[in-house]
Each structure stands twice: as structure tokens, then as C-alpha cells.
């Protein structure tokens, strides 16, 4: 045991001499949270749109009012009035506008007579997301020009769906917190644990240690435990800060907070063991760097952290079923947002425990205690 402690002590001491890395590893996931939380954030605003109204009749004015309402209300669009239809379309091609609305001179007449009134909507369809939002907003405006704002009395003979909210509403950025914490764990496990072994090997100091009586178990176990200590610390800080930023209750009840820690701990140990298994023979830090970039995406996006797994094709869903981050995110969401106790998510816990056991065993068995 003394040797195992010595491996842990060496590693933790060495890490503590580089506090900058620790700060970076905590700050980065939080910045991710802020950027993801704001860059994917649902509603688009202020899309520049050119309006050419060639109809000075009643319906032309009415449509213009509807467009203005969109620009002022949900602020989806920002309107620029122009007189030249050609210039407006040109502006869309140039990228000055995301779209152009052309109201033809005979619009009011056709509306009044009921003969196919049309409004031209030119959109930049190379940008799917903006185009979707824009087409939606403009079509709504056009479709609603006949509406009068008198509430329709509900028809008592028609069945109504009644929505019951089981939990408090979870905002988009709050929903990201479990994923961000899991990402913090991933980053932590990449810069501790086996990375330090790879670094020793790269610097040629590994052999000096292999020539001492430390055993395989001391080395693998010691590095995993020291990585665990450091990563848990980082992940807990990231969780607390993210919760504070997004307005989630940090602790809730004692059992809720303990439940969160248990999930963090199992995930950390599991990932550390898995990465140890995969990189146990690597001899250059660059290998770890490349691997990290790749694995982060491979594990993070199919984890359900940003988009529900149910939206994945079948093969990707199958991958999620063996992705530890998927279970971690699921478990954390369940505890953080629904206040579920651990036994309610025993499926996740059982998977994480088994994953850890298998990975740790393989890591120790496959580790070669020679150069």
C-alpha cells in the first residue's frame, strides 16, 4: 500500500505544481457552457430582410403592418425598405439580407377579388437554420393578414388535450449543465491518469520507476486514483459554478448532492480506466492530444447532452448504449432536474459500475511493466 500511496503522492504533487492547468481545465468547460448555451439558443433574432412594397392598397399596408409586428414583437427580422425589387434580391445574393419580401402592385386587387394573391419571398437557402426561421416568420405574417384579434370561444364539444408539467421548466442552458460537467470529467481524465505515464515515458523517466519494486497494480491504480482526486475536484467545481450561472439549485437535499457526487465519481473512474486501457502504451503526448480531440466528440455528442438520443439513427443509438457519457448525462439529468434518488436510476449506476470494473481489469491486465 505504501508504494501505491507513493505513486499517488508523486502524481498529485507534480500536478499541484501546475495550478494553471487546473484552472484552465475548470474554466474551459464553463466557457463551453456559456458558448453552447448562447450559440444554439433556440430563437433567431434580427435577421435582415428587405421589403419592397409596390402595392399602396389596403392589403399591402395591412401586410406591411404584420411584418412590422414581427420586427417589433419577436424581433425575428429587421426590416429595410427599398423601392427596387432587383436591388433587394441582389442584396440577398450579396449576403446583405437573409431574405426579401416583394409585395406586387396588384396584391390588394387580387386579395379583394380573391384571385391568387401572391407575395414574393426570396430567401438565402444556403443557411438552412436562418431560412427556416425566416420563412416561418414571413409565412405567418402573410397568412395572418385576414385574422381579426377576437379570441375564439372554445368549442365545448371538441376534446381538448390538457398539458400537465411534472417538473419545473428546465431552460436550455440549464439542460446543458450535466453535459458540461461530464465534459469537464472527460477533460480531467485526459490530463491526469495515463497522460502522466505517457509523459514519463516521453521524458525517459519511466524506466527509473520501473526499475523500483512498484507493481503494475501500484502504477495503474496509483495513477487512476490520483487522476480521480484531481478530476473529481475539477468536476465538482465545474458543477457548482455551472449551477450557479444557470440558476440550478446546487445542493438541494443531502441525498441529491451525494447522488450527484456518486455519478461523477463512477464516471471519472470509468473514463480514467478506459483511457488508461487505450493509451497505456502511447509514448508521445501528441498521441494523447489527437486522441483527446477525437474522443471528446465521439463521446460527447452521442451522450444526449445537447440533443436527445431519440433523434439519432439506429446505429448511433446503439453506440450511445455503450457510451459511458450517455449514462452519466442521463443519471445527472435525472438527479439534478427531477430530484430522483439513486435507486431510481439504478440502470445507469449498474452500467457505470460494470464499465468501471471491466475497464479497470483490462487496464491492469494489458499494462506491460517493461519498456
Amino acid at each position: 500500500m505504501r508504494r501505491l500511496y507513493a505513486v499517488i503522492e508523486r502524481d498529485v504533487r507534480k500536478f499541484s505544481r501546475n495550478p494553471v492547468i487546473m484552472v484552465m481545465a475548470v474554466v474551459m468547460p464553463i466557457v463551453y457552457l456559456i458558448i453552447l448555451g448562447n450559440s444554439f439558443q433556440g430563437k433567431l433574432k434580427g435577421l435582415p430582410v428587405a421589403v419592397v412594397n409596390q402595392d399602396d392598397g389596403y392589403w399591402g399596408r395591412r401586410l406591411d403592418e404584420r411584418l412590422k409586428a414581427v420586427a417589433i414583437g419577436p424581433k425575428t427580422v429587421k426590416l429595410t425598405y427599398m423601392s427596387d425589387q432587383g436591388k433587394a434580391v441582389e442584396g440577398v445574393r450579396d449576403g446583405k439580407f437573409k431574405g426579401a419580401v416583394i409585395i406586387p402592385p396588384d396584391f390588394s386587387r387580387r386579395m379583394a377579388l380573391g384571385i391568387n394573391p401572391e407575395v414574393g419571398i426570396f430567401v438565402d437557402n444556403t443557411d438552412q437554420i436562418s431560412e427556416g426561421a425566416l420563412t416561418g416568420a414571413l409565412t405567418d405574417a402573410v397568412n395572418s393578414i385576414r385574422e381579426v384579434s377576437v379570441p375564439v370561444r372554445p368549442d365545448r364539444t371538441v376534446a381538448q388535450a390538457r398539458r400537465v408539467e411534472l417538473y419545473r421548466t428546465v431552460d436550455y442552458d440549464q439542460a446543458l449543465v450535466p453535459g458540461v460537467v461530464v465534459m469537464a470529467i472527460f477533460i480531467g481524465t485526459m490530463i491526469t491518469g495515463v497522460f502522466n505515464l505517457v509523459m514519463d515515458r516521453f521524458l525517459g523517466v519511466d524506466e527509473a520507476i520501473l526499475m523500483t519494486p512498484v507493481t503494475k497494480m501500484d502504477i495503474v491504480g496509483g495513477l487512476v486514483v490520483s487522476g480521480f482526486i484531481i478530476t473529481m475536484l475539477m468536476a465538482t467545481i465545474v458543477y457548482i459554478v455551472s449551477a450557479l450561472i444557470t440558476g440550478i439549485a446546487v445542493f438541494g437535499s443531502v441525498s441529491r448532492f451525494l447522488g450527484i457526487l456518486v455519478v461523477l465519481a463512477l464516471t471519472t473512474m470509468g473514463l480514467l480506466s478506459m483511457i488508461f486501457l487505450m493509451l497505456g502504451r502511447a509514448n508521445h503526448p501528441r498521441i494523447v492530444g489527437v486522441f483527446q480531440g477525437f474522443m471528446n466528440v465521439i463521446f460527447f455528442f452521442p451522450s444526449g447532452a445537447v440533443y436527445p438520443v431519440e433523434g439519432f439513427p439506429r446505429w448511433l443509438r446503439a453506440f450511445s448504449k455503450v457510451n459511458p457519457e450517455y449514462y452519466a448525462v442521463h443519471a445527472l439529468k435525472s438527479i439534478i432536474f427531477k430530484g430522483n434518488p439513486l435507486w431510481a436510476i439504478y440502470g445507469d449506476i449498474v452500467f457505470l459500475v460494470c464499465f468501471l470494473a471491466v475497464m479497470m481489469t483490462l487496464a491492469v491486465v494489458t499494462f506491460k511493466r517493461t519498456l
Partner: protein
Amino acid sequence: MPSAVETFDIRKTFGELTAVKDISIQINEGEFFGFLGPNGAGKSTLIRMLTTVLRPTSGTARVGGYDITKEPDEVRRSIGVVTQNMASDLDLTARENMDIFGKFYEVPKKVRQERVAELLERVGLSKKADELAATFSGGMRRRLDIARVLVHKPEILFLDEPTSGLDPQSRRVVWDMLQSFMKDYNMTIFLTTHYMEEAEALCTRVAIIDHGSVIAMGTPDELKSGIPGNDIVILTLSREQENARNLAAAEGYVHKAQLENGDLRCYVNNGSEDAPRLMKLATDAGAEVRAVSIQKLSLEDVFIHYTGRSIREEETKRVSMFLGAGVPAKLGR
């Protein structure tokens, strides 16, 4: 007397290359044994096998009475190893480096603390004990490397080129340290080097290794008396070196005439007497004599005698290798 190290036809191949070729040597307890050879001779490879981190391709060895492949744990507990790379952790202090190594060997706390303090004192690092090794000079780091593998008082100490890259003064400090530790700790020392002076100054017995094989072995005196003559007259010649060599070799008083790197080396009994004769002979051969020197036989000459090459030729290569610092250790192995 029991053997501290004994190898039995030990061999290591890396692909096509045989780095260590069936070496069988036997080192007694209490010996200061030197392994002398140029770059790539196989010194580090042999040490790595003896210290259990490389498996021999064939053959085996016993270290401290234990088989290196069957009882590696026992071997590791009996030895201390200073690797060719400076291996102390730069982001730990001297004391932390030593303390952690003491823990690797499960030295009890009280003993460990006392010994760390004593060793720090003896290697002259007491004042720097709580500073990061990153702030140390090369010589200080080397002394720390040595001190940290003595915390558990090994029976056998392996050192792989402990003074390479050190200035002559630091080298001498290390030599003195090694000799006094050996005496006080009752150790057997196995040291590799490519410095002749080092082997001559320290070792009770020397094996000369080249291309993976031992080409000569004995005490420094035995090795020197194994080659003919007492002195070497070295003539630096421009032109007609080959011709001069042939003429010299034909002389009765010249035991051996060798061309090495443009120098004509003549092994004779009495250098000061024979030098003028050899100069005349060279001039007669049409060579121009640039310089003459007379040397007592050294282990260097033993090496040249057996290989026809000087170890120093290789040394220039080594220097350029060191200049390419940042060469990853793995590649340097």
C-alpha cells in the same frame, strides 16, 4: 565469494540488430565493475535487462542471487539504478524526489527521513533540499539521481554513464561520492561509461564492450599488459600514412603499428628512445610529420588495440546527439 551479478549468454535483439550478443560475465560482491564501450555498444541495453525492464531475447542473468526473469521483484528490491537519462522529477523538490523513492522501496518513515537528510548532506544538496529539481544544474541533478536510489541502501548499484555531459570538476565530485558510498554502504557497483579515465580511476575490473560483445575483460592493469609494449608513439602525418605504417611495422622494436584517424600509432617499449627513429622512418617514407607525442598505455589504447577505432571518434557523434536536445528519450534509447 558469492556473485553479485552473473550473466549467462544473455542476448537482446531489436529486429535485425543484435544489441547484446551472448554476454557471460561474473561480478563478485564488493567489486566496482566497469563496462566500457562506445555509443551503441549495448551498455544501456544490458543494464536494462539486468534491472528487469527489458526481457532478454535469450539467456538470462542473476542479480543479487535472483533470476532476472523469474524473480524480478526480488531483483528490484536488491538494486538501485541511475539511468542514463536524468530521471529525477523536475517538478518535485530534492527531498520529495528522495522521499518518494524511499516509499517505492517501502523504507519505514523514520529510517527514510534520517537517510534522506544524511544523503542530501553527503551529496551537497542540503541547502537545496526544498527547492524544485528544475532549478538544479546538471551536476546537481546527477547527484540527486544518485542520492535518491540510495535511500533504501541497495546491495548493488547500477549506474549508466553517470558522468556523461558533466564538466571535469563535477565528474570528479561524482567519482569521490561513488567511492565513499561504495565503502560505507557495502555495495557492489556496476557502472557503464565511455570515458577511459573514469574506468581507470574507479573500477577494480573492466569489461570492454563493442557491438554487443565483450572483447576484453580484466583489471585495468591486466588489460594494459595484454597489449604489447609500454608506450605509444603517435605521429600525426600528412601524406603517405599507409607507406609509413608498413615501414614501421617491419621494424623489430615496433610491436604493432596502427593507423587510426590519420595518426600512426606505434606500440614500443621505450617511447622517448624510439620516437626519433620513428620520425626519421616516416620522413624516409615520404610522409610529412606534423606532430609527435608519446603516451603511456591507457585503456583507450586497449580499446584501439582491439577494435582499430578510438572511442572518441564516437564521442563526437554523441556530442551532436546531445546538441539535438529534446530528442525524445524513447528515440535516444
